[in-house]
């Protein structure tokens, strides 16, 4: 039995080892996506392949390592031995998508298997029809990059040159892929040495006991946290508005049922898998759930995704969009079906946590989902080829008591960063007209969603063309959502302008309006498309802001004025979105609440269960006017996305819109849902079955 001080000491050390390995691997990496952007992660697993530590990189990348190890074990069985290292990029063997190449290795001490380690990098290109391997237009897996089931790249310490050669053969960037592969292998070997040292110190038995106890502690903690939440059922939906081939709209649906410390996540009703690369396999479904639950439940605890994975049940039908079967195309899995899965779980947790006072600080609206990116490729002025990844950067969801993080990026990638404009211009023939936080992109709320980033790119002479592949979601239906009465962030868009007089735009004052005034434009109503950028063409890309929290009319007037003065909200949106008129007073601009809803401010919201609402005897009760109601009797009103966020003007919403539910007594906003075409019903539902800790 390991004593608890050794437990604390070694737990800290193993966490450090797992993160150190990531730092070293990133240092060896040959691609900006890894060394500058942070699109990688590491994991340390127990001898059975259960994740005990996820690194601080992209969480979903570490959470699939358990599935990768399971595939390796089923492929190689008893032949797995000391010094072996395995790789795969096959989503049907646990990888996320073809570009997220996973490398895993067993750790043996004295012939005994004691642990597994793993690492995933996002690779620049692993082949397939499209530079960067995001295969716009692919209708099945055969039109995508080659999938490589588990291979033993290092056998008993000896690198297998044949497997290496086969792996590199299909890439447009073989040297970068090779250096990265060796970086990942080297990292596994370093991890093995460090773990062996720990075992030398405490012995195999205590090492095994240590990992068991960490998993046990995390499992118990997650279950305790579930137990204090109210029992009930929550239904939420989200949408993918283009499948990579056609602008068809797919729905993902989650019904979460919670009883005592049991949580069932039922995805029944989700669309069948698509004939386009947006699907994810089982790996993406599991990762999409874990990337939310691990950071939300493992606060001040190791990120033991293997333990969290044992705390819920999944109900999902194979052949659906987030549980696709081969040969479904999956090259865009991460930022489509996988990300949409986590958007569903974020929505549910924001509702559930809202009813528990001790967990309210963890309530966060759904923020930017990482899905507005592109790849540019072609030739530089000197004739050499380039492939450049262009990650979008959106805003974070608002929290209870805090605005969302402006231009913070996808929350599940804590150390993610975009490169400097100068770095991007040094690697490509492109020129950035601007890169800025887009006003009004953050979802309105008592606490505002973080702002998304907009950039505009053109070609730099003498180069006359470059290819651009864009892949985004949320161009027709927002993927971000507000929480407890907050509004979603703006829609994302990619707009191509042609015939632009670039120097006059650069020398002028305007942004998108100036582009629109002087040139022809076309919305990539596709969300996903391949285009050629030529002289005088400008690509405008807008990432969504995060969802807001609480009724926007309850926002502090001074905070709205500050937002207007610092350029985060326009005066027009202050009026339509928040009900505040900005006027010029004798000492500068002042804000005046136009529609009187201020009494909400006087309620101490921290005393409330939800934002402004209690739950008693099967009904919601408004804290402001004491009116009792349930969802069918709530007041409702339909709004266009553009009304909620003026940056959504490029799209008509494809018939979707917002369903705003409010208290029938005083109009305090209770929930902001999306409604489907031809309906005014919102797409979420909440049925509280029992009193949780926070339910009055």
């Amino acid at each position, binding site marked *: 039995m390991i*004593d*608890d001080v050794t437990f604390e000491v070694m737990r*800290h*050390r193993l966490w*450090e080892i797992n993160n*150190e390995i990531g730092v*070293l691997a990133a*240092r*060896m*990496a*040959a691609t*900006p996506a890894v060394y500058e952007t942070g699109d990688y992660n590491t994991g340390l697993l127990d001898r059975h392949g259960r994740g005990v530590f996820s690194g601080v990189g992209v969480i979903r990348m570490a959470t699939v390592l358990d599935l990768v190890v399971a595939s390796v074990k089923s492929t190689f069985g008893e032949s797995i031995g000391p010094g072996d290292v395995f790789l795969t990029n096959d989503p049907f063997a646990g990888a996320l998508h073809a570009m997220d190449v996973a490398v895993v290795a067993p750790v043996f001490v004295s012939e005994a298997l004691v642990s597994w380690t793993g690492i995933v990098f996002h690779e620049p290109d692993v082949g397939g029809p499209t530079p960067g391997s995001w295969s716009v237009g692919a209708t099945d897996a055969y039109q995508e990059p080659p999938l490589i089931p588990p291979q033993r790249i290092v056998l008993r*310490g000896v690198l297998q040159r044949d497997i290496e050669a086969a792996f590199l053969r299909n890439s447009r960037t073989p*040297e970068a892929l*090779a*250096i990265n592969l060796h970086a990942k*292998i*080297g*990292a596994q*070997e*370093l991890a093995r*040495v*460090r773990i062996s040292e720990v075992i*030398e*110190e405490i012995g195999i038995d205590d090492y095994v006991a240590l990992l068991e106890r960490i998993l046990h*502690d995390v499992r118990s*903690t997650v279950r305790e946290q579930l137990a204090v939440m109210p029992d009930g059922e929550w239904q939420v939906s989200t949408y993918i508005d283009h499948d990579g081939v056609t602008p068809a709209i797919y729905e993902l649906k989650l019904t979460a049922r919670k009883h005592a410390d049991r949580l069932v996540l039922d995805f029944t009703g989700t669309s069948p898998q698509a004939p386009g690369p947006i699907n994810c396999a089982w790996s993406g479904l599991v990762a999409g759930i874990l990337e939310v639950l691990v*950071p939300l439940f493992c*606060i*001040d605890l190791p990120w033991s995704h293997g333990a969290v994975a044992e705390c819920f049940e999944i109900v999902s039908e194979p052949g659906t969009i987030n549980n696709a079967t081969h040969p479904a195309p999956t090259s865009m899995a991460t930022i489509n079906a996988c990300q949409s899965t986590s958007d569903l779980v974020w929505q549910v947790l924001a509702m559930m946590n809202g009813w528990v006072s001790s967990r309210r600080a963890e309530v*966060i609206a759904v923020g930017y989902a990482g899905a507005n990116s592109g790849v540019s490729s072609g030739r530089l002025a000197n004739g050499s080829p380039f492939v450049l990844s262009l990650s979008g*950067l959106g805003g*974070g969801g608002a*929290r209870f008591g*805090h605005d969302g*993080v*402006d231009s*913070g*990026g996808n*929350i*599940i990638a*804590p*150390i*993610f*960063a*975009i490169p*400097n*404009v*100068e770095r991007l*211009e*040094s690697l490509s023939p492109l*020129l950035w*007209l601007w*890169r*800025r936080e887009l006003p009004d992109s953050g979802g309105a709320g008592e606490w505002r969603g973080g702002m998304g980033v907009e950039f505009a790119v053109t070609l*730099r002479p003498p180069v006359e063309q470059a290819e651009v592949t864009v892949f985004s979601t949320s161009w027709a239906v927002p993927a971000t959502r507000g929480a407890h009465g907050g509004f979603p962030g703006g829609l994302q868009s990619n707009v191509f302008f042609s015939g632009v007089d670039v*120097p006059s735009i*650069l020398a002028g004052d305007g942004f998108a309006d100036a582009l629109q005034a002087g040139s022809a434009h076309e919305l990539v109503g596709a969300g996903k498309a391949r285009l050629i950028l030529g002289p005088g063409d400008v690509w405008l890309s807008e990432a969504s802001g995060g969802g807001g929290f609480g009724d926007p009319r309850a926002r502090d007037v001074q905070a709205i004025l500050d937002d207007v*003065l*610092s350029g985060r909200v326009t005066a027009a949106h202050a009026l339509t979105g928040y009900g505040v008129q900005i006027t010029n007073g004798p000492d500068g601009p002042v804000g005046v609440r136009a529609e009187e809803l201020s009494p909400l401010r006087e309620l101490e919201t921290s005393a409330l269960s939800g934002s402004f609402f209690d739950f008693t005897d099967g009904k919601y009760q408004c804290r402001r006017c004491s009116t009792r109601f349930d969802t069918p009797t709530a007041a409702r009103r339909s709004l266009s996305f553009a009304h909620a966020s003026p940056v959504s003007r490029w799209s008509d919403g494809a018939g979707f819109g917002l369903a705003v539910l409010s208290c029938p007594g005083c109009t305090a906003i209770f929930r902001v849902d999306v409604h489907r075409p031809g309906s005014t019903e919102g797409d979420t539902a909440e049925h509280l079955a029992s009193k949780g800790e926070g339910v009055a």
Partner: protein
Amino acid sequence: MEVVGRYRIAVDIGGTFTDSVVESADGQVWSAKARTTPDDPSRGVLDSVRAVADSMGLTLGRLLAACQTFLHGSTVATNIMITRTGARTALLTTRGHEDAIRIGRGRQRVAGLSESEITHITQHSKPRPIVHPRDVVGVKERVDVDGTVVVSLDEEHARRELTRLAAQGVQSVAISLLWSISNPDHEQRLRDIALEVMPEAFVSISSEVAPVLGEYERTTSTVVNAYVGPAVARYIGRLELLLAEFELTAPIVYTLADGGLADAETVKRRPLATLDSGPAAGVLGVAALSDTLTSRNLLCSDVGGTTFDVGVVSSGVVEHDAYPVVDQYELRLPKVLIKSVGAGGGSIARLDARGVLRVGPQSASASPGPACYGLGGTAPTVTDAYLVLGFLDPSAPLAAGIVPNLEAARAALMALTSDERPSVVDVAASIVRIAESQMADLLHRVTMERGVDPREFALAVYGGAGPLFGPAIADNIGIETVHIMPNPGSFSARGMLKTALSWTAESSFLAKLPLTDDRVGDLRDCSSELAAEVTKTLSRHVSSDRVSLRVSVGMRFALQSHSIDIPLDLSRASLTTELRAAFVARYRQLYGPNSIYEPGTIEISYVRVIGSVSADQENSVMQEAKPRNGNTQVTQTRPVYFAATGWVQTSILREGDFLDGMTVTGPTIVHGPGETLVVPPGWLGSSTNRLVTLRASGRSRAADAVSKRKGATR
């Protein structure tokens, strides 16, 4: 070395105390401290120098008049950043890119945070802005990557905006334009205009402050420079005036974050470079002494009340930080590597939700302080644990001047007892072990990230709590030698007296292997220029024949961003072959046998020349003195609880009892003024010319664990 006056004075402003150290031409050293005076730090400087003059039996005026060099490390710039009390600063940047500083590449929300903060992903936030968004001006101009002007500068627009900002009270102007590193014309022109519009303003341009690729970090560096500039200039002016009143004629020389020295004019232009210069001085001090220590590979550990700071000296050379962060803003400035973890005497122990004992990072700080201070703190801290275990003298004042209250410490620790830790002593021993292992883990991380084995290093400890923690931390990671730096509590100030002793010059130099004859020639020219620069700089302080140079190149695969430093010997005939072989060997050593893709294209990325100065009379403090009578007379003992042995009768000495040339056998504790030196069981301590060295030699459990680990990995 030419002696103008008789004394060299170093003054270091810390958070609580301002330390002064004086060294005479014949190697004698005095030190003293005074309370830091945050409202006007020059007052604390004067108090501190007066205190040291008192201890020398001199008046302040006499000491200053006889001063040859006055070295000064100031926290003024750091404090301005922490308290956000800098000048109202405007930022002029390329239109369309005004938000670069607040987008912060997205990662600003976690930059420089601890792992526990990074993993709490719902709670991230960006730092408070340094420049208000309304004070950011988008200048109409554009230069491209090659330095070509795409849009010429709209001077009238810039002038109008500057006039508006001046009227609104802006005092300082930062100018940072895209690609000013390729073509600084627009930045220079804007500076002229800014100075025409507001002649009194402090103006910084990015192509001078941080001429590196990457507009975000270049802009933050320029903005911080402008933000702290006026206050730093005011402070320097005030200090010079004050000291001149007391007859100081020697120029004041300021220490920089990279360990270099600068005169007042340089600091006024580039005050940014003084950020965090205090901790750097300690590391520099260790490096300066490294020739006379047992190893030239040293882990520098500064143990204070709230943080544990680590720096690295490899082969006598100080390691630098490639990615410095100040208050979540990533900057580009040459800076000594300092890694910190929130662990120290004030770290608070608690039980987490699962009943597991945790220590830190929350700290009781100096106020209210540990429970045993009796200043209102009730949370159990590491200091309380050490007191209960007998390490601290319950009857003598601690560093803060407070006599500890043992009962208060026991009462605080009592709250953490459990079935597994039924007694207060069990709790205390557990807290100490966790705190020490966290410090050891940081040392491990810092060395591991550099691909070196910590066991190849000796530990150099300083800071008030350094001698207390040192040997236990060393035991944790298998280090067998611990050097206690002289005057550990004020060692950073001492370190300043040594800062001129090394100088680094570096130039970016891109060349793919194999090197052509032309490029070899360029390489030769480049390294000669750098060598001349280094020699010239160091010759200001010592004669050039004492300067030794180390020339190296950065090497990497052409697609990588991070380089490895490889020694360069230009006299070799087959340079390409040798460089390639050295790179491959070093890469394998750092990252493991299968980490390298040998067919990859390899390139040189920079040339670096490091000049260092061999030890001389200045370091006489380290010279061997004749041993006195072998062992000390022990008159007092006290039971002390060591992890390896449990309670054991321990010899207690006063600092005055532990004289040069003596050797003591652990367990022994030596109490100095505010400092406690621990020689654990199985360790020997020896004092040689005021420098104490501890060596693991006995059969302590920890030492056994170390040898076992060593055997396993070899």
